[in-house]
């Protein structure tokens, strides 16, 4: 090997890529040639520097956080603002709230524009499909004609279009409002109305979620349309207004059914913003539902796909992932297994074995089972069965009517009629195990026939709602308990007192029915008692004036941090602001907020907070809401220094109006309307 050949092979030699023979030749040359040896050493030295340099970066991965920020800036998505946090916080007390007015505000904020794609000349179905090719995150809302709040879906898919993770919110189901997350390894359901949480693993949800994805995924919908058009099933009319700021439309008329759909397209991006579904009734077109695609490709934070971090304290947790639940079927028939499951459940209640109670009660953890059933004092089982099949619900589902003798706290005995719903296979890993998934309402055991029960039985849903709110307003808790049976020792009772005590009734409307809910919804508007919170202020900035840096609850727990990406600017009259005390700053901010003086507000909070406030309130206004009434009125108190947090705080009180629907039902032993949700 000569010098030229050696140098050609030096890198391969250092990398150990030469064959045995070549390697020996190279080494022999290096031994003999000082110049090549020096070259070898120089390359090896440089390589070591590069290796060390590269090693310093080992394990670093900032692609996702960077892209999140980049894409967020593209779309300027909605962020928490002081107002929205206050609204959420206020209603976040949610004593089983079906939904909140904050949700109404949020729901009407519909961001349409998404990616900054330069405008193509015209669009057709192919272009629309093309536009979706990179859609990996999707956020969709569906509005049913008879529903008051939209269902909402957040879906993350992989490149071939398979759902990877999903979250969805169904506001109106037989179980009340439900939030669900799904991944192949773990599913979570938060029954918001029922204040329950279940974690389990299931394959059953997968195809369902995939079909939801396909319904929600415009790409597949559009492909199907194209196929249907080719097959002559639908007629398609494409309308492109010449003005690019206007939405274009693809109107689809079905040839075999009296229905029509309109796909509204953003002409700048070629993405669908809305689909309207119409029923054709003669010459009339009746809007039956609509779907809105709010965000395309706005990355969905991973925490959205797990609900554990969002649960309020009063939610009862059941776990079917880490424990074997229920009662084994063995040689029993389905009817026998259902009845036996119920028998074992009530026997466990008699024995006060709450671990077992929880395992049969859909896997609820012992502490929650004790909390839920601890006040139920079952003396004996009077009768059980026979089991009644419920094939409409699930193939092996049964109702098992039973009678139990219970003893009330005053020693009074009564018979409690219950009808647990029992079924096997909730836990797919143990399909032969039966468990109770509903039909037991321990609250019923607190429902006593009142001495003057007849008077309450006669009340209409509206009268019951009025009487309930009146009792809250007067802090007449004995009376409140007649509409909301619970033990006075129940932790929720104290929270309810704090939340509702002294409220002011503004109006109670006409009750209505909705969906499959067996009770009534009663619209109401109340003024809630004040809510205490704190704002954190700081003047550690170049302008040397106090600005707001965070919102904290009354116990100084952080609710929302206000991030000053750009330092507060030095104002023209900065001195005047620099002289303001923490309390004066908070007062000035909330005063500006009450007047919607955006310019003034921006002197105290980051610009994004003001922008989002502005946008949300403008949207609420457009939707016909009286925003001045909805927005909290804030009273500012004194400032104090927290040594623990090393910061100044200002005490504040928000006064707020709540407008929503109270759910009441009378299918209970006392036949009177009782509170069932909606606060």
């Amino acid at each position: 090997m000569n010098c030229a050949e050696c140098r050609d092979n030096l890198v391969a030699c250092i990398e150990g890529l030469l064959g045995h023979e070549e390697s020996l030749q190279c080494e022999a040359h290096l031994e003999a040639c000082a110049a090549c040896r020096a070259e070898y050493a120089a390359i090896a030295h440089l390589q070591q520097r590069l290796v060390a340099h590269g090693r310093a970066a080992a394990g670093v991965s900032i692609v996702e956080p960077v892209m999140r920020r980049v894409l967020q800036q593209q779309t300027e998505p909605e962020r928490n603002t002081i107002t929205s946090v206050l609204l959420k916080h206020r209603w976040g007390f949610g004593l089983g709230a079906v939904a909140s007015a904050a949700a109404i505000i949020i729901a009407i904020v519909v961001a349409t524009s998404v990616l900054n794609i330069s405008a193509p000349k015209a669009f057709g179905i192919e272009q629309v499909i093309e536009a979706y090719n990179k859609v990996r995150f999707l956020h969709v809302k569906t509005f049913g004609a008879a529903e008051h709040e939209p269902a909402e879906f957040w879906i993350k898919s992989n490149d071939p279009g398979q759902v990877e993770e999903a979250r969805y919110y169904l506001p109106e189901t037989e179980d009340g409002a439900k939030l669900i997350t799904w991944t192949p390894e773990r599913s979570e359901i938060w029954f918001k109305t029922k204040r329950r949480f279940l974690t389990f693993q299931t394959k059953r949800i997968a195809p369902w979620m995939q079909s939801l994805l396909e319904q929600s995924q415009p790409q597949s919908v559009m492909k199907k349309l194209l196929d249907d058009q080719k097959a002559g099933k639908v007629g398609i009319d494409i309308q492109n207004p010449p003005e690019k700021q206007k939405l274009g439309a693809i109107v689809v008329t079905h040839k075999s059914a009296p229905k029509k759909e309109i796909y509204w397209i953003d002409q700048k991006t070629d993405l669908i913003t809305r689909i309207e579904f119409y029923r054709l009734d003669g010459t009339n077109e009746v809007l039956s539902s609509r779907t809105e695609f709010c965000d395309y490709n706005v990355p969905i934070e991973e925490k959205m796909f797990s609900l554990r971090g969002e649960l309020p304290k009063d939610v009862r947790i059941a776990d079917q992932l880490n424990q074997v639940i229920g009662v084994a079927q063995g040689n029993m028939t389905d009817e026998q297994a259902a009845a036996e499951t119920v028998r074992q459940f009530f026997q466990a209640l008699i024995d006060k074995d709450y671990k077992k109670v929880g395992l049969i009660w859909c896997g609820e953890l012992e502490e929650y089972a004790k909390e839920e059933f601890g006040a139920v004092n079952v003396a004996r089982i009077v009768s059980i069965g026979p089991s009644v099949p419920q094939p409409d619900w699930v193939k092996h589902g049964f109702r098992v009517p039973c009678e139990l003798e219970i003893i009330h706290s005053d020693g009074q005995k009564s018979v409690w009629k219950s009808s647990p719903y029992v079924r096997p296979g909730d836990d797919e890993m143990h399909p032969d195990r039966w468990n109770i998934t509903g039909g037991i309402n321990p609250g019923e055991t607190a429902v006593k026939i009142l001495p003057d029960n007849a008077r309450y039985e006669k009340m209409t849903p509206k009268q019951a709602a009025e009487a309930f709110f009146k009792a809250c307003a007067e802090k007449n808790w004995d009376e409140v308990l007649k509409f909301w049976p619970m033990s006075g020792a129940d932790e929720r009772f104290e929270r309810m007192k704090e939340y509702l005590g002294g409220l002011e009734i503004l109006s109670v409307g006409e009750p209505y029915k909705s969906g499959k809910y067996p009770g009534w919804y009663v619209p109401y508007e109340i003024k809630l008692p004040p809510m205490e919170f704190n704002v954190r202020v700081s003047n550690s900035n170049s302008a040397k004036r106090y600005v707001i840096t965070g919102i904290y609850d009354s116990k100084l727990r952080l609710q929302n941090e206000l991030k000053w990406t750009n330092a507060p600017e030095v104002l023209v009259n900065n001195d005047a602001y620099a002289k303001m005390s923490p309390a004066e700053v908070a007062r000035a901010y909330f005063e500006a907020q009450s007047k919607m003086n955006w310019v003034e507000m921006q002197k105290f909070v980051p610009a994004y907070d003001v922008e989002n406030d502005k946008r949300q309130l403008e949207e609420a206004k457009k939707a016909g809401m009286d925003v001045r009434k909805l927005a909290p009125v804030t009273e500012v108190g004194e400032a104090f220094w927290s040594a623990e947090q090393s910061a100044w705080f200002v005490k504040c009180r928000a006064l707020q109006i709540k407008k929503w629907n109270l759910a009441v039902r009378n299918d209970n032993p006392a036949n009177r309307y009782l509170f069932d949700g909606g606060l």
Partner: protein
Amino acid sequence: MDLTDEEYVQRCRDGHPEEFRLLVHRYQGPLFSYLTGRLGDRSQAEEAAQESFVRAFQSLKKLRKPESFYSWLLGIAGRVAKEQFRSLKRRQQDREVAETMMPEPADNHAEYPLDEAIAVLPETYRQVILLRFYEGLSCQEVAQRLEMPLGTVTKTLSRAYALLRQELQARESADRTINQTEHP
């Protein structure tokens, strides 16, 4: 086959922000390493690297020579590092902590000749260096990734080393001259 920096920059400018992902992926390693050298702390370097990419994306329209994306990114990162250092120092002063002993990062890249030398390499050579040392691929893996024969990879590496050494020599001798002038 991956696109060139210039092509990715152009795609982003044409309204495909998702494509920026590939530039971040390509340069996160060397940028992070450079910033670790400047700031001496991994978590700060990570923060600065994120900020640099975000700022680069915001200013992408202003980039005159898209083929020099990385060199331009290094310039941004240098400014971010300096800002971050000052803000850290301010925070420390606010807390009345004793004056930091940490040296303020220099304005130019003279102290980081290797980073700068990598930045000015022609893209073909830089790509191989990045894959080999920052993504930790073997030569065979680089060959697979770039769909080129193994021999071409080692030859490209060999040429890249030669260019790097040339560049380093020029920079390091220039530094010596400056240092000697300033500190006789």
